[in-house]
């Protein structure tokens, strides 16, 4: 480990103004990142509480804890909270906000006021959704399928739809800000191929934000207008087509999966390089794989609709295109593995998360190939196999990367180190709890247990109890980091500017960084991930 002097800088972004106004009116991308961190953590635990209730209900075959209608609301609110208010903003809005300007040597994002506005938009959208929850919940599933959502459901569809609609604009503004910042704000010497892979993944994610989000916004708006004013867009009684809603919905919501996982891939690339002390193997392939995933992601939405009355020919085309996504994904997995090969690996907490990500993402990705195959997909559609698959991507992938990134950059964010032993322990608990929760669901789904029912035949109980037990372990695993990260804010050991001995620009400034990020604009003279010499030599 490097021996740079460890000190707390006298002036940094956290002590540049105190009081509620200095936070709520800030334009500093780092503070806005922390505002997002607080908000998404809240939604994560609200969404998590619904998951707890779902797993409690499923511990026994009979529908005894909650009624079927309540259960419908539970899984809907779990999905809405987790997808729109946690997973989608998770890494981009927190770590991305904090890191994009610092990693490219800029003072701030291109549009700081817009950045703050995006947080308020997110909060307003969240408030509508929380209102829907308090007013009695919503039961359409997070997918809002018509005509149930427009005609039949008697629950709070409109406030929820408004919440999702509004929050979409916070994603769009974040994506816009990142794209412009990456194009126009790079420090001298920070060429495109010297950009960290995290920046490439943020760029790819931003493209999806900007191109995909408006489509779901208008789609959800159509649902709300149809429900509110009895207009007809998808209403079969007027000759409308409910399947058209599904097309429009998945045109965004499949790419949204890549909004969730691409940022995590970016984080993992950073972690693997830093903890193996090596240039990422095939850097440009990993960078372009991000863009390839973003582009291909827009061409595969039909694989959500193999049983929805889509023509066989479209299904075949969507099936082939879906298989293609495996190529850039595999490029990444193989390149991370090749980077680790003969690397000088140090088993710090972030690296544990990175390895967890690679393993779980591989399982999630490979089971995705099962679902891209039309015949097999028809067999497992709407079963727990699907649930297990996308939780391996979203929890095993996104959340692992998020936690890994949060630990890796926590010393930069807070200026202090977290307790390493506890962190390793909880990484282990999360990995164990996660697999115990979701692996049995693959088996359950393959055996034919359908999703979205609160009761099930008794022969499925053993696997369901395993899953519920795993979920309680997973829950503990999430609580521990929250507690010790808060604790470390005050009591953690001082981190110093570069606790990991990494070579990115973010490690050249103090921890925590000053409000303007760097004392003077950095000039980049070394290649990305150049571990042939320590950072001090590069800077000097």
């Amino acid at each position, binding site marked *: 480990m490097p021996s740079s002097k460890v000190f707390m800088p006298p002036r940094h972004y956290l002590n540049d103004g105190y009081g509620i106004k200095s936070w709520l009116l800030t334009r500093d991308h780092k503070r806005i990142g922390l505002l997002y961190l607080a908000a998404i953590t809240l939604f994560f635990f609200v969404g998590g509480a619904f998951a707890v209730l779902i797993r409690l209900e499923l511990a026994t075959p009979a529908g005894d804890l909650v009624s079927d209608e309540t259960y419908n609301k539970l899984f809907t609110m779990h999905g809405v909270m987790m997808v729109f208010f946690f997973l989608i903003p998770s890494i981009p809005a927190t770590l991305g906000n904090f890191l994009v300007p610092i990693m490219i040597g800029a*003072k*701030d994002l291109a549009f700081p006021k817009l950045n703050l506005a995006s947080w308020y938009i997110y909060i307003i959208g969240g408030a509508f959704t929380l209102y829907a929850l308090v007013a009695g919940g919503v039961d359409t599933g997070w997918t809002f399928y018509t005509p149930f959502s427009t005609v039949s459901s008697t629950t709070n569809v409109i406030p929820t739809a408004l919440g999702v609609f509004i929050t979409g604009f916070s994603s769009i503004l974040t994506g*816009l800000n990142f794209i*412009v910042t990456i194009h126009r*704000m790079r420090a001298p010497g920070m060429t495109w191929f010297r950009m960290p892979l995290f920046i490439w993944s943020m760029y790819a994610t931003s493209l999806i934000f900007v191109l995909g989000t408006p489509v779901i916004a208008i789609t959800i708006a159509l649902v709300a*207008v149809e429900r509110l004013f009895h207009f007809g867009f998808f209403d079969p009684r*007027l000759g409308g087509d409910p399947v058209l809603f599904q097309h429009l919905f998945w045109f965004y919501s499949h790419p949204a999966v890549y909004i969730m996982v691409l940022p995590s891939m970016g984080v993992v690339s950073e972690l693997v390089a830093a903890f193996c002390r090596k240039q990422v193997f095939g850097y440009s392939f990993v960078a372009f794989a991000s863009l390839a995933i973003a582009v291909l992601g827009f061409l595969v939405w039909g694989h959500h609709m193999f049983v929805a009355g889509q023509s066989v020919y479209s299904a075949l085309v969507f099936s082939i295109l879906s298989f293609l996504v495996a190529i850039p994904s595999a490029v990444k997995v193989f390149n991370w593995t090749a980077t680790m090969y003969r690397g000088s690996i140090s088993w710090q907490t972030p690296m544990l998360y990175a390895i967890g990500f690679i393993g779980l993402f591989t399982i999630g990705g490979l089971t995705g190939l099962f679902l891209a195959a039309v015949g097999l997909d028809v067999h497992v559609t709407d079963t727990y196999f699907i649930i297990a698959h996308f939780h391996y991507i979203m929890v095993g992938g996104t959340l692992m990367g998020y936690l890994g990134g949060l630990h890796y950059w926590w010393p930069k964010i807070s200026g202090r180190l977290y307790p390493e032993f506890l962190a390793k322990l909880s990484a282990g608990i999360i990995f164990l709890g996660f697999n115990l929760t979701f692996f049995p669901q693959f088996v359950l789904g393959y055996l034919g247990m359908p999703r979205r029912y609160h009761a099930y035949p008794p022969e499925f109980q053993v696997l369901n109890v395993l899953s519920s037990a795993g979920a309680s372990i997973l829950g503990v695993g999430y609580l521990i980091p929250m507690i010790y990260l808060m604790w470390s804010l005050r009591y953690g050991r001082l981190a110093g500017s570069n606790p990991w001995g990494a070579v990115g620009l973010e490690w050249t400034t103090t921890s925590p960084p000053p409000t303007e990020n760097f004392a003077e604009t950095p000039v980049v003279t070394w290649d990305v991930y150049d571990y042939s010499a320590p950072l001090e030599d590069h800077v000097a």
Partner: protein
Amino acid sequence: MLPDAVHHPHHPALAHQFDSLAQQSEAATLGMWVFLVTEVLFFGGLFCTYTIYRGWYPEAFAAASHELDVTLGAINTAVLITSSLTMALAVHAAQLGQRKLLMILLVLTMALGASFLGIKSVEYYQKFAEHHVPGPSFQFEKEYVRHAQIFFSLYFMMTGLHALHMVIGLGIMLVMLGLAWRGTITPEYYTPIEISGLYWHFVDIVWIFLFPLLYLLGRHGP
């Protein structure tokens, strides 16, 4: 990188995160273009829905389209195109630093935009009076009554969303007028006018597509 000739480190309009006005202007312009790409996709969902239903129900769509007032629609098209002209001239005036002319042209643009909205609301009122607003009170010849509702749903949604953009555009023009009034806009710094112009032209172009798609169905020769 950026030419040093346009380096104004102490210009009052220069935001702290930028090194130069040129960088700031490039960033703002790129930001507006990216936003317009988002807008294309936003309207794109509607255009896609329209295309599918028009392909399925061409006769009903033509019959419903005949109920729209082509004259008012055509007048509105002319009004909007003229407002784009005054907007383009406003950008030119800003570049040359002709403050008074700039303000006159902005007011003209706003007046034309407001006339568009006025004519549009007359049309909406007519549709309301003729029971062509979708829903329980919708009335239409029996053969097409179901599919015509889809047409009018799309008509109100698309033109409504466009009108909302016009209202936002008027708000932006008001802010621009304020900037011009205070003398913030100079030949060195006219980016706000320029990118507001981009937005205004975009909203105009959306209408150029909406007009034939909604008003001119089945009106060509035999």
